[in-house]
């Protein structure tokens, strides 16, 4: 691109913008298509399925989605389960991260290995064990059962990330609190926690997204349509009658659950990128 020849420069520039345009189209088109479909009423869908723009945009699907199936209830379930998962795993991992990041004791390395091992557990490997356990404790079709089972993938991640963060906090802060006679818990909650806020936001957000999107456990540990979270609900969407194509409704439901997530991701994009890539490059 450093060529002095203006023709070569223009051609390169046009080529690059063309590539950018192709990438943008590839990345964004499927979601545009979902929005377009969601705005086409089911009566017109078969006629307009292949048109690039909705002929008569209508919000009919967005209204119907809440009348046919218990989708409002599914949304509530998802919000409660994802929030509960984040709160519980952050609480447990803040305590653990303080111990792992600031205390010296034997067996720490083995513990870190163990946590890493759990983080690569395939969910399917614990499915039958968890299933019998959840049945035994009567947690089937409940928020508690899902929140508890989600700990298997959020907890290793939050513990690991927060430990790395706690380690970087200067020890002087802790020492000052110690000199002032603060107990370990006071030190943690009064001194370290305020410093940890950015890390808590990032890890909490990523844990929330993972809990919000989880499918296998949600599908297996709920059978009632009204106990399901959003992912199994969207996977099982059917039309109001068997003759109706459910795709307009499915796309409306999809758009409803995706828009807040996209806004969240775009607002916090710097945190998310740094959270995803933390440590990955120091190799």
């Amino acid at each position, binding site marked *: 691109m450093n060529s002095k020849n203006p023709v070569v420069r223009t051609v390169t520039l046009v080529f690059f913008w063309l590539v950018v345009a192709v990438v943008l189209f590839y990345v964004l088109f499927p*979601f545009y298509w979902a929005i377009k479909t969601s705005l086409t009423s089911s009566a017109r869908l078969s006629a307009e399925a292949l048109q690039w723009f909705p002929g008569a945009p209508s919000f009919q699907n967005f209204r119907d989605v809440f009348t046919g199936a218990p989708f409002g209830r599914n949304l509530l379930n998802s919000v409660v389960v994802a929030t509960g998962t984040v709160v519980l795993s952050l609480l447990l991992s803040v305590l653990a991260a303080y111990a792992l990041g600031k205390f010296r004791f034997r067996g720490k390395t083995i513990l870190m290995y163990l946590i890493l091992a759990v983080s690569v557990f395939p969910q399917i490997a614990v499915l039958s064990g968890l299933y*019998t356990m959840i049945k035994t404790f009567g947690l089937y079709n409940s928020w508690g059962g899902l929140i508890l089972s989600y700990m298997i993938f959020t907890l290793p991640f939050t513990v690991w990330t927060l430990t790395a963060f706690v380690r970087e906090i200067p020890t002087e802060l802790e020492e000052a609190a110690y000199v002032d006679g603060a107990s370990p818990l006071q030190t943690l909650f009064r001194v370290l926690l305020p410093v940890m806020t950015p890390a808590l936001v990032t890890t909490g957000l990523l844990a929330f997204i993972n809990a919000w999107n989880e499918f296998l456990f949600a599908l297996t540990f709920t059978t009632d349509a009204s106990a399901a979270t959003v*992912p199994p609900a969207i996977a099982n969407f059917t039309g109001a009658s068997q003759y109706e194509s459910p795709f307009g409704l499915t796309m409306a439901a999809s758009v409803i659950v995706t828009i807040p997530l996209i806004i969240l991701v775009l607002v916090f994009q710097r945190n998310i990128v740094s959270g995803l890539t933390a440590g*990955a490059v120091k190799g």
Partner: protein
Amino acid sequence: MTTPLPSQPRAASPRAGRGLQAGRTRVALLLLVPMLLVLAAVAGYPLLRTIYLSFTEYNILTDPAPKWIGLGNYWFTTEDGVGLGVLQIPEWWQSVWNTVKFTVGSVLLETVLGLAFALMINSKIRGRGLLRTAILVPWAIPTVVSAQMWNWMYNDSFGIISDWGQRLGFLEAGQSFLSNPDTALAALIAVDVWKTTPFMALLLLAGLQTIPSDMYEAADVDGASKWTQFWRLTLPLLTPALLVALIFRTLDALRVFDMPYIVKGNAPETITMSIYARQELILNSQFGFGSAISVLIFLIIMVFTAIYVTSLRVKFD
């Protein structure tokens, strides 16, 4: 994608006072107990229970209790010479083969495409901020949603991709890439590539940004072409980040369940190991046999992880 990335923990500050450390082991253990209890309940116990069940015959609907049969779920030949163990059943090997093809195909494409995206965003072209924001969109979309979106685009009669395929002559009227068993797996790989390339690109971008720019200036002075610079400078320095990204994606792909299940259900041409395990466990209520499949998947993943931890020499402290 929740997998923590290794290698960030560094040695604790040497300045930590010795007086502060004395007698703190007990406090540390108390702080760790709640987390360890929960992990034991949701990971440790269920895993042991799954391993135990894999040695039993147990239909959860009809049998009152699991019955010990040793290795029978893994390998068992009847008197008539019919193999009933998982390892003798073609459907299992079909799911392994599908999963391998899915993993190799999607991870390779995601790496190449992700590297291209990362190089574009890292270059000084205008609009790179826009690109970086835009590639976050597929990543932000829940897997279930992206599966349904593509399901609709692949629809036989109303799907836009089927329409393009039919116009270009790849498909006959009323056909889709999904309905044809020969192309179904490739169609699923395309969905995964669309969804996961951004994640790859972000990891590789972070790696690219650690390469100091004066290295490129030196290469320019020496008269190295951009092509040479990419192969001799960028790629070798990017290898650690590339390896980490590659291995994490491989582990994810080997476990894949949701997207192929939503789009194709238990169809034999796209059944993955996890889908097969769930089919036997939940749909057929075979908790013994299904657990044996789960254990096999667990072993495969753990072998991969062990290779990865040793080959990259992950350090924790």
